[in-house]
């Protein structure tokens, strides 16, 4: 038993530390204006991913081979304070190790692909630094044993995601869209932090093992209403990170990033991080009917919305992202219905499949030409239906405008915010004897009413 635990501790430590070391190894020379060469960056990244994957797979094998029970591996205390402390705790079970192995495996594939795909791209090193930050975040989310570790991983995911959406930062659209994505993530993060604080407040501990153990009704020291509130906050956090309604508007905007990052974030891992969290919190959901209903509604509505929106997208990455969102919605419903094994298998299968689709997306014209060459002529396009009914037209418009979700948020949240902020700003100026109105909202704020267009007026993602 001790040997098995020691092996698990070493393996998990390697999984966590490897990407963090990679961040420092790639980032520090770049900041000192001595960036590593492309080949070195690519090799280091691939090596780190292989090490992390082997360690995660090894831990998984050890866990199942020794028929271990879920356990918390503690690597010391960061700091402690009144209602508990912040310790480096990692929860090891089949779910966490499985997701960690999936994450490191997928990241290894993407790292290998990115090394060639981004060859001679300005910002090559920056991409891999952010990619390493992402890997650090996702393994922290996967293996987190305390809500603070989970929150740390969650934040790292959000930040790296936003910065990679704005990777082509010389153009305006990616930057504007990155800010929008980050705005939604901040809402998600705030919900997560609120859940963490309430957990500390009520349970006196941030242990996920305590929260998600499923022992007792409701779990551990929480009252039913407390468990419900925490579950609802977690669902809000999940909705933000996994683009569930009403936060779906950021997904097409996120396609501004490089294709490999879109693949790993919005096809494979980041978009499933919310599902994973929900899966983790399933014991909590079991005791909260309200939270389950909320999750079913959000998942089902998102699946329906995304399947409509996916059918009218004009670029392949947006279409794929909505297709991924459809599956995510279904996975959320599965989790809320208690079908956890099915949901996990769904996550793994969907992540791998969508990763392949995203990575092959830039090649789609080439594939089409090959197909046409093989057929000896052009592939016939599907003709649109001639007979257009009123319902179909409305559905089409609804899908084309992405359910008017962005407009609704603009009208209900952004516009009132600007009105109030404007009045307050004027008042502050007036209090200082300034009657001019030099302020005003910046054009780069997330108030734009639709997906930002880049300087060339194109919409959607770069090739």
């Amino acid at each position, binding site marked *: 038993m001790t040997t098995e635990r020691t092996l698990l501790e070493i393996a998990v430590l390697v999984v966590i530390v490897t990407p963090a070391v990679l961040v420092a190894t790639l980032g520090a020379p770049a900041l000192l204006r001595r960036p590593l060469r492309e080949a070195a960056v690519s090799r280091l990244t691939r090596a780190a991913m292989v090490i992390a994957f082997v360690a995660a797979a090894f831990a998984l094998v050890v866990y199942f081979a020794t028929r271990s029970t879920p356990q918390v591996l503690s690597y010391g205390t960061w700091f402690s304070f009144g209602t508990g402390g912040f310790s480096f705790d990692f929860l090891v079970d089949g779910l966490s190790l499985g997701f960690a192995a999936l994450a490191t495996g997928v990241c290894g594939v993407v790292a290998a692909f990115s090394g060639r795909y981004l060859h001679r791209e300005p910002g090559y090193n920056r991409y891999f630094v952010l990619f390493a930050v992402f890997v650090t975040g996702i393994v922290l989310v996967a293996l987190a044993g305390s809500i603070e570790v989970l929150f740390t991983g969650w934040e790292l995911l959000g930040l790296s995601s*936003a910065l990679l959406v704005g990777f082509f930062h010389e153009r305006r659209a990616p930057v504007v869209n990155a*800010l929008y994505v980050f705005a939604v993530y*901040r809402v998600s993060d705030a919900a997560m*932090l609120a859940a963490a604080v309430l957990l500390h407040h009520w349970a006196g501990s941030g242990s996920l093992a305590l929260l998600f153990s499923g022992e007792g009704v409701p779990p551990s020291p929480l009252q039913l209403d407390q468990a419900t509130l925490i579950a609802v906050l977690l669902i809000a956090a999940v909705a933000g990170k996994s683009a569930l309604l009403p936060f779906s508007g950021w997904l097409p905007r996120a396609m501004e990033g490089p294709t490999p990052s879109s693949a790993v974030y919005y096809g494979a891992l980041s978009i499933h991080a919310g599902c994973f969290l929900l899966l983790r919190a399933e014991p909590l959901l079991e005791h909260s009917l309200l939270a389950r209903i909320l999750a079913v509604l959000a998942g089902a509505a998102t699946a329906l919305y995304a399947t409509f929106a996916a059918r009218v997208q004009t670029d392949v990455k947006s279409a794929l992202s909505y297709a991924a969102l459809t599956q995510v919605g279904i996975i959320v419903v599965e989790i809320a219905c208690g079908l956890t094994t099915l949901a996990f298998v769904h996550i793994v299968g969907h992540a791998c499949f969508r990763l392949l689709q995203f990575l092959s997306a830039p090649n789609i014209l080439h594939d089409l030409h090959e197909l046409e060459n093989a057929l000896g002529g052009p592939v016939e396009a599907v003709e649109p239906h001639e007979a257009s009914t009123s319902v179909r037209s409305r559905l089409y418009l609804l899908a084309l405008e992405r359910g008017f979700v962005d407009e609704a948020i603009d009208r209900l949240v952004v516009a009132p915010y600007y009105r109030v902020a404007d009045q307050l700003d004027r008042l502050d100026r007036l209090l200082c004897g300034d009657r001019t109105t030099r*302020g*005003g909202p910046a054009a780069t704020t997330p108030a734009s009413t639709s997906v930002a267009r880049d300087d060339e007026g194109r919409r959607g993602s770069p090739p």
Partner: protein
Amino acid sequence: MIEPLAWLVCVAALPLVIVFASHTRLHVERVRSLSVGCAVALVGVTVLVFAVPDLRAFEIPFDPGQSVLLGPSLFRVDAFSSMLVVLAAALWLLAVAVTPRTRLDRAGLRRAALATLTTMFTFATVSPALLVLSWAASLWLFLAALSAPANRHAQRVAAGYLGASTLLFAAGVVLVTRPDGRDGVGEQVGIWLLIAAALIRKGIFPFHAWVPEVFDRGRLGPALMFSAPQTGAYVTVVLIVPRASPEALRFVAILALVTACYGAALALYQRDARRSCGYLFVSQSALVMTGLECTSKGALLGSLVLWISSGLAFTGIARCILVLEARRGRLDLSRHHGGYEQMPLLATSFLVLGLACTGFPGTLGFIGEELLVDGAVEAFPIVGFFVIAAGALTGLAVLRMYFSLFCGRRGEAVHLPLRPREAISFGAVAVVLLASGIAPAPIVASRLAAAELILRSRAEGRRVSLVLDSRAVRASGPCDVYSSSRASERSWPAAVPPLAKRARPTTGAAPRRARAPTRSETPSCTATTARSPRIR
């Protein structure tokens, strides 16, 4: 054992060297180099005092006729203020190291040195009269920096608000230190005057309007030297927290919580980088104030950590803006200015500093915010969540600034790379915030001792010697003190046994607002005698 007088002389001499040098014929760049050297030395001296427990607590007593107004000691450095003097020294170093050459002048360097001296002086005293003097002196220095015609409007605004706060502060001090005014209406009025003065100085709603105005139309450098050390918070801890009623503190805490959200929300709205920075300061300053008034140990500890974190991080951000302005002129946040490729270190430092302001994991700000949120929610179950909202909005405002200032197509303007001095300074601040976020134990332990001291001083209605406190903390380990139950934390006056109970068993527990103990009753534990601060 360090000689207190020698330490004080050293602390005073280093800025005074610059004051003297600025009057000589030395080239201004030489004066700057000398300033950097003196600032480095000052940081070293203050860090030494902070790092060595035996050096951390000393005082220079003052007892001519036991004047209440002057207090029991002229100067005192304890667990609470030992880190604040490091912060003041670090802010001076940052100021002189990264001020662009175009903004460099002898008068500015002289004012920076004098402002640092005043701040150090403030943090090293608990004497009400000396605090009034330093409060007025710092204001005078600040207003002098705004004397150029272009800054006249800002000067008028600052003079109006801060002049009023100085008058209120002086009046409040007079009222609360009247020997015959104890526990009377006069003291209550005095406390509210002190609260009003602190609110104005800290830019807490509804007295916040001067901050963005001064940042926008005034001079950013002097504004930072004046605001970033947060002497208003120090005065709050020293004079208000031990005296004010719980209701008054709750009122101030709620105002601060609202201000934190307000500032962050308006920082996101602005299109001018300086004004946005001003609102960001309002928000950060209010977050610090929130914890000081929450009267829960966690919130107080979070607030003290945030004080250090946001002081460094916010100053770093504002200095980044100054550095960019020197290259590009006024910065409009509605445009994308580009330049990441030319200044990746500045961009990354800006991002790290901004993230530290938002409480991002891995930075010192995270520790402070996590503790503060926890304590604030404990004290105010609903309004406490404003801290989370403020953090979210601040994060958005910071990232928007980052995208605007460093992303976008390169324009026609020449992009000058960072000078080595600037690169080292910004890189060092970012590394300090990251390193202290990853390994926060020393800072948390230090702030824990300070929080214990503040709570104890409130429980007894007075400040006490740090010597006992640091012994208690050392005896129980750096963080064990927090293993107490939450219930005991909530009712801190009962949870923290009064010093008198431990050290003066014969006299019993000194009731709150009781008479000030005579010197013979006061515990004398070390060479740094714990004198009774007969402030009240």
